[in-house]
C-alpha cells in the first residue's frame, strides 16, 4: 500500500458514555483517496472528526487509543496545529456568509492571524481557486459574498478554502450529498486530480462515487471497522458477509 500518513491503533470514540467507534485499526495511504462507507449512524463522520480533533469539541466527545500523523502522536499535538495540517470539507457547503469569495479562500490565514503580503495572498487565492476549477467562474466577482454562488460552486469554494492552507490530508464528509449530478461529477473529477498533492479521505454513501474516486475503501458497521482494502477488491470480492450485504443494498 505504500507510505502511510494516518494510522489509528485501538481507536475508541465516545459521546459521554456512548461508544460510537470501537477498536478501529487502519492505516491510510499517502497521496491516495480512501473512502469510508457504511450505513447511517455507523460512525463515519465521527471517525473523520477524530482525525482533525473536531470530535473533542462536541459535547461529551472523547477519544481513546492512538492516532498517528506520519510518525507523530496526533493526540499529543496541539489541536490547532493538527487542524491546519488536516483540512475538512463538510456535508453542507458552509462558506462564511460575512466574507467575500476572496476572504473565504484566505480565511484560514485570517482566522489564525497569519499576516500575508497582498501579493502572497492574491497568489494563494488564485492557486486554490484554480485547483478547484473555480477561478474562471469567479475571478471577476472575487469581492462578492461567497453565498451568492450556486451550491456546487459553494462546495468547491469550501474545498478551495481548505486547500489554501496546504493541508497534508483533506477530509471530505459526504461532500456531494447536497448537490445535483452535474456538480457532483465536477467535484469527483476534482478529487481525482487533487490526489497528486494531498491525501484524501472521503465519506460517501454512494458505491458509484467510491468506485470512481477511491483507491481504498473502508467499511464501517455499528462503529466497527469490518473491512479495509483496495476499492476494487472490496467491491468485487468482499471478505465479510456484512460488506457484501451492504454493497448489495441490504442495509443503509
Amino acid at each position, binding site marked *: 500500500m505504500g507510505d502511510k500518513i494516518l494510522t489509528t491503533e485501538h481507536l475508541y470514540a465516545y459521546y459521554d458514555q456512548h461508544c460510537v467507534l470501537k477498536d478501529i485499526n487502519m492505516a491510510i495511504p499517502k497521496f491516495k483517496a480512501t473512502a469510508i462507507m457504511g450505513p447511517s449512524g455507523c460512525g463515519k463522520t465521527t471517525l473523520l472528526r477524530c482525525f482533525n480533533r473536531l470530535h473533542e469539541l462536541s459535547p461529551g466527545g472523547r477519544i481513546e487509543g492512538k492516532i498517528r500523523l506520519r510518525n507523530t502522536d496526533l493526540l499529543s499535538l496541539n489541536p*490547532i496545529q493538527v*487542524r491546519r495540517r488536516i483540512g475538512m470539507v463538510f456535508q453542507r457547503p458552509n462558506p*462564511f456568509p460575512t466574507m467575500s469569495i476572496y476572504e473565504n479562500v484566505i480565511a484560514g490565514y485570517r482566522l489564525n492571524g497569519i499576516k500575508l503580503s497582498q501579493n502572497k495572498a492574491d497568489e494563494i487565492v488564485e492557486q486554490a481557486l484554480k485547483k478547484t476549477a473555480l477561478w474562471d467562474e469567479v475571478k471577476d466577482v472575487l469581492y462578492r459574498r461567497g453565498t451568492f454562488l450556486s451550491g456546487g460552486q459553494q462546495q468547491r469554494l469550501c474545498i478551495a478554502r*481548505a486547500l489554501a492552507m496546504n493541508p497534508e490530508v483533506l477530509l471530505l464528509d459526504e461532500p456531494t450529498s447536497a448537490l445535483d449530478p452535474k456538480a457532483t461529477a465536477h467535484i469527483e473529477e476534482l478529487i481525482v486530480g487533487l490526489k497528486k498533492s494531498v491525501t484524501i479521505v472521503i465519506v460517501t454513501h454512494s458505491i458509484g462515487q467510491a468506485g470512481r474516486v477511491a483507491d481504498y475503501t473502508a467499511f464501517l458497521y455499528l462503529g466497527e471497522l469490518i473491512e479495509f482494502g483496495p476499492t476494487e477488491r472490496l467491491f468485487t470480492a468482499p471478505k465479510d458477509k456484512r460488506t457484501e450485504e451492504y454493497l448489495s443494498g441490504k442495509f443503509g
Partner: protein
Amino acid sequence: MTFNRDKLFEKSLTLSAWLVVILVAAMCLSLVLYALPVFRTTGFGFLFHRLWDPLQGKFGAMPFLVGTLLTSFLALLFSLPFSLAIAIFLGEYFNSGKIALFFQNTTSLLAGIPSVIYGFWGLFVLVPLVRKLEIKLGVLPYGVGIFTASLILSIMIIPYAASVGREVISLVPSELKEAAYALGATRWEVIRHVIFPYARSGIFAGILLSLGRAIGETMAVTMVIGNNNQFPTSLFAPANTMASVIANEFTEATSDVYLSALIAIALLLFLVTTVINIIGRYIIEKLSV
C-alpha cells in the same frame, strides 16, 4: 360563514394596526400644537439657548438636550463591556443547562426592577460613593450629577443589549463555527471573525434598544441627577435631562408659555429618539448578513 369570519378577523387586525399609527400621529400633532406658543415667543432659539429661567421667561432647551445625550451615551459606554461579555458568555459559552438559565433569568430580572427602586438605591448607595470619589478627585462633592445618573443608567440598560446579543450569538449556525475550528481557529478567533461579524447587526440592534431605554429613562435619573438647569460644564455637575426636567417641573409650570416650553422639550425628546432609531435602523440594514 367561515369566509365572513376570516374577513372580520382580517379587518379587525387591520383596524388595530391603523389605530397605533393614528395614535402616534395624534400624539405628535398635539405635542406640536401645545409646543407652538413657546416657539412663538422664543423662535428656534428655544433649541439652542443655554439659559433656562422660567421666572425671567427665558426658555432654552440646550442644557437638557446635552444632559440627555451625555448621560445616555456615557451610560452606553459604561454598560457595553458588561452587556457584550454577558452576551458572549450566555450565547456561546453557556447556552444551555442550569447555569445558563440562572444567569439568563438574573439578567432579565434586572430589566424588571421598577426604576424608582434604581433611583432609591442610587440615592443611598451610589451618591455617597460618588461623593467620596469626587472628594478624592478634588471636584465639588455634590454626589448627584451626570456621572451618577450615567452609572445608574448603565446598570439599568445592561439586560437589553445583553439579552438581544445573547439571542443572536446563540443563533450563529454551528456549521460556520465548525468550519472555522476546522481551519485551526481558536475559540477567541472564532468569536472575533465568525460569530461577531455574523451577529453584528443583531448585537447593534440590542445596543440601540439599550440606548433608547437610557434616553427615555425618567424616574431613576430625576432622583440622582441633581436637577440643575445650568448648562453642564463637568461630568460631575448636577444637571437635568429632557425627561427629568419635564418630570421635575411640570407641576410648577404656572404660565402657559412655561407649560408649552416643557411640552416642546417632550417633542424634542420624541424627535431625538426617532432620529436615533432611524439612523440605527439604517446601520442595522448595512450590517446585516
